[in-house]
């Protein structure tokens, strides 16, 4: 009796809340810097797509502002041993087509990531050997070998669960009508113009969603994007460019929410990939170190990025618990740079070519580096190359230096392994150091945070010494929005989460 009374008391206020909260009617307009690619979590490849997915597809886990892994479709996980991961799922979650999200859907979605030809997720979940449904709300993953970055992978597209019924019915066309378990359901897409999502009333966390509709509009031109924000035609834009920051700050109708990102900007050196590696910069770490010492990162950032970004000398972002405080950004020291070049015994000036994608900011950055390094005895030639071509050129090893950025991943493995491990597919310069290889492999197996921190600290120190890459800065996520918008939480991954966001009428 007492129990049921308590239950009744507990239920009543909830009913009150539910009826007091009317269905939202507002629309939120979000500008993106380019049109996303396929809206299928298995095949999607662009950062812009991830922003749309934040409204469309919930993931097993999410990350918070401090990069902690927090529950979303899964309520928790346990490692029973290094090779067995148990996932506990949230009860009562529905997909947009009304079917139930359960252990079978998780198994289906993960297997889809693994088996679909052309899957962009395959490498992310490659560690999984077997997926077993223990009960409707429990999934057991058996791994080929211990792999601690896996849970972090499940906080992104690899952790998005799709409706089996809808995916099987749509087949190859799933990207044209995606069905997930996120706060909004897919309504319409006009390529290069808009992606429209409508509120999903049965969303498990519906009380935190305050818009009836979200419209994502790709606006590629930065000036036009800013003008739209200023004119009130959009409510929020991802990534205001640093040069526009001042204009937004001065405008009383607009505000900026900044957060440090997960990625980096770098110069990748060709140390051992083909004949182009046979240059002084490729062959001698001392020469690369001299180049680094000739560059004033702070000043370069001031000139090109209005001083907004943070100088760095390592792959892991400062927002991560795996950042190594021991690896500091060296101050500019032209005398020492000259000294190193003398020690290296190279012919002056040291001539080399820097391949640079054609974005105006990257080109400016290269020009600043060109001017600074000239003072130390470098003759850096800039080879401007359109981005898609530059990737191809880098892949073939046809470069000496390459200015290339990485958008960043939650787990440090995602910023390091593919780039500095000798087998990494994005290791353009074919840098190989057996110690680094071993530490990186070990950090994948290790699950304890302090042990992994120690390993990544060693990697960061060694890479700073060998200089296969010169890390320049950590970019920031700079989200511009109308002052009417509130409740936006900036998370380092730069996604626009809609939970808790409201707009004053």
């Amino acid at each position, binding site marked *: 009796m007492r129990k049921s009374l308590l239950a009744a008391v507990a239920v009543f206020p909830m009913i009150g809340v539910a009826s007091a909260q009317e269905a939202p009617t507002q629309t939120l307009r979000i500008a993106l810097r380019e049109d996303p690619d*396929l809206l299928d979590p298995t095949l999607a490849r662009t950062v812009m797509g991830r922003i749309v997915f934040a409204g469309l597809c919930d993931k097993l886990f999410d990350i918070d502002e401090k990069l902690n892994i927090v529950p979303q479709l899964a309520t928790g996980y346990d490692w029973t041993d290094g090779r067995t991961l148990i996932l506990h799922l949230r009860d009562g979650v529905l997909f947009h087509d009304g079917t139930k999200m359960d252990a079978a859907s998780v198994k289906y979605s993960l297997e889809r990531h693994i088996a679909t030809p052309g899957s962009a997720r395959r490498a992310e979940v490659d560690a999984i050997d077997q997926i077993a449904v223990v009960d409707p709300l429990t999934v057991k993953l058996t791994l080929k070998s211990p792999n601690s970055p896996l849970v972090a992978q499940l906080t992104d597209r690899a952790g998005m669960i799709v409706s089996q019924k809808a995916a099987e019915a749509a087949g190859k066309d799933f990207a044209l009508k995606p069905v997930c378990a996120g706060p909004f359901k897919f309504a319409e897409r006009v390529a290069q113009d808009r992606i429209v999502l409508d509120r999903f009333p049965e969303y498990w966390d519906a009380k935190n969603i305050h818009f009836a509709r979200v419209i994502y509009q790709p606006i590629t031109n930065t000036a036009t994007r800013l003008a739209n924000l200023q004119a009130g035609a959009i409510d929020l834009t991802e990534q205001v460019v640093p040069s526009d920051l001042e204009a937004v700050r001065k405008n009383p109708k607009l505000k900026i929410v900044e957060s440090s990102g997960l990625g980096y900007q770098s110069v990748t050196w060709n140390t051992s990939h083909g004949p182009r590696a046979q240059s002084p910069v490729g062959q001698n770490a001392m020469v690369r170190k001299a180049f680094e010492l000739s560059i004033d990162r702070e000043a370069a950032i001031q000139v090109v990025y209005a001083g907004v970004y943070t100088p760095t000398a390592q792959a892991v972002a400062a927002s991560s618990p795996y950042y190594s405080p021991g690896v500091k950004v060296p101050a500019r020291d032209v005398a020492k740079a000259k000294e190193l070049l003398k020690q290296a015994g190279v012919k002056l000036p040291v001539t080399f070519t820097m391949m640079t994608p054609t974005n105006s900011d990257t080109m400016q950055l290269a020009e600043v580096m060109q001017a600074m390094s000239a003072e130390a005895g470098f003759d850096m030639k800039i080879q401007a190359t359109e981005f898609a071509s530059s990737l191809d050129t880098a892949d073939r090893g046809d470069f000496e230096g390459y200015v290339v950025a990485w958008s960043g991943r939650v787990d440090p493995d995602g910023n390091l392994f593919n780039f500095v491990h000798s087998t990494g*597919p994005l290791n353009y310069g074919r840098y190989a150091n057996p110690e680094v290889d071993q530490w990186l492999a070990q950090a994948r197996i290790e699950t304890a945070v302090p042990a992994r921190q120690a390993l990544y600290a060693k990697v960061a120190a060694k890479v700073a010494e060998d200089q296969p890459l010169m890390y320049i800065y950590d970019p920031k996520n700079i989200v511009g929005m109308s002052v009417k918008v509130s409740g936006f939480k900036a998370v380092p991954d730069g996604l626009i989460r809609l939970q808790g966001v409201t707009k004053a009428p």
Partner: protein
Amino acid sequence: MGGFLGRRLALVLPTLLLVSILVFGLQQLMPGDPALALAGEERDPLVLAQIRTELMLDRPLAVQYAHWIGRVVQGDLGVSWRIRMPVARLIGEKLPVTAQLGFMAFVIALGIGIPAGIVSAVNRNGFLDYAANIVGLAGLSTPNFWLGIMLILLISVNLGWLPPSGYVSLAEDWRQSLATTIMPAFVLGNAIAAILMRHTRSAMLTAMDQDYVRTARAKGLREWRVVIRHAFRNALVPVVTLGALELGTLLSGAVLTEQVFSIPGFGKLIVDAVFNRDYPVVQGVVLVTATIYVGLNLLADVLYVLINPRLRVA
């Protein structure tokens, strides 16, 4: 007329076939591997191989071409590699947008260029002639993207009169549709207006010196009648040729203007497709554009004959 049209039509098909081979061949010369561009940031080598197989990139060029053209003649332009939408659907969505933009730009260009050309010819070396020339030269030398951004800042951001970018279709809401397209149409039309103005002016000057104009004046006709009915009609032939050629400029100008105003039209479609190495879209768009271009030139030829009876020989 029938024979003339027949001969012109017979040339269309080989022209388009040549275009299809050229497009296909040229984009193979484009640097960059489409599989790499499509594979995104993390390029899993296994997945790269799967993409190459799926898109037939590992097959000889001739096989790829035969496969593509074989489908094209059946009316299937293929599917976008990047977003998996049928190319025909994309073109069907975008073509009306650019057509509307182009039509409005052309109307603006004609509306400004022809009257300005007539006025400046009639007032030869007078104040109006110099004024029109200066404005025309300014229009010709202003880059589209700069003018576009300036207009957005002035009219949308400062005055708040028009939406800064985007597109609403005529069917959805014609007022909004005009509001979203008038600025880009003006930007696009203004350069063509300048060219049309200068050509109309010189054609009019030539016509005004002709004997029949003197005769018309001698008959005591009113000046505006002389200018419009006698001089202008004869000045129109070179202007029509130019107009048809400028329609091509319109299409290429749309590429820039659509970027600035974020209009989801043909120009934006092809630019994005080139950067993303989305070959089926590039091929489809170029083929359709070529067809339109060939069609417009055919139309111009027919128009000459209608305007100038002396050309009706066949």
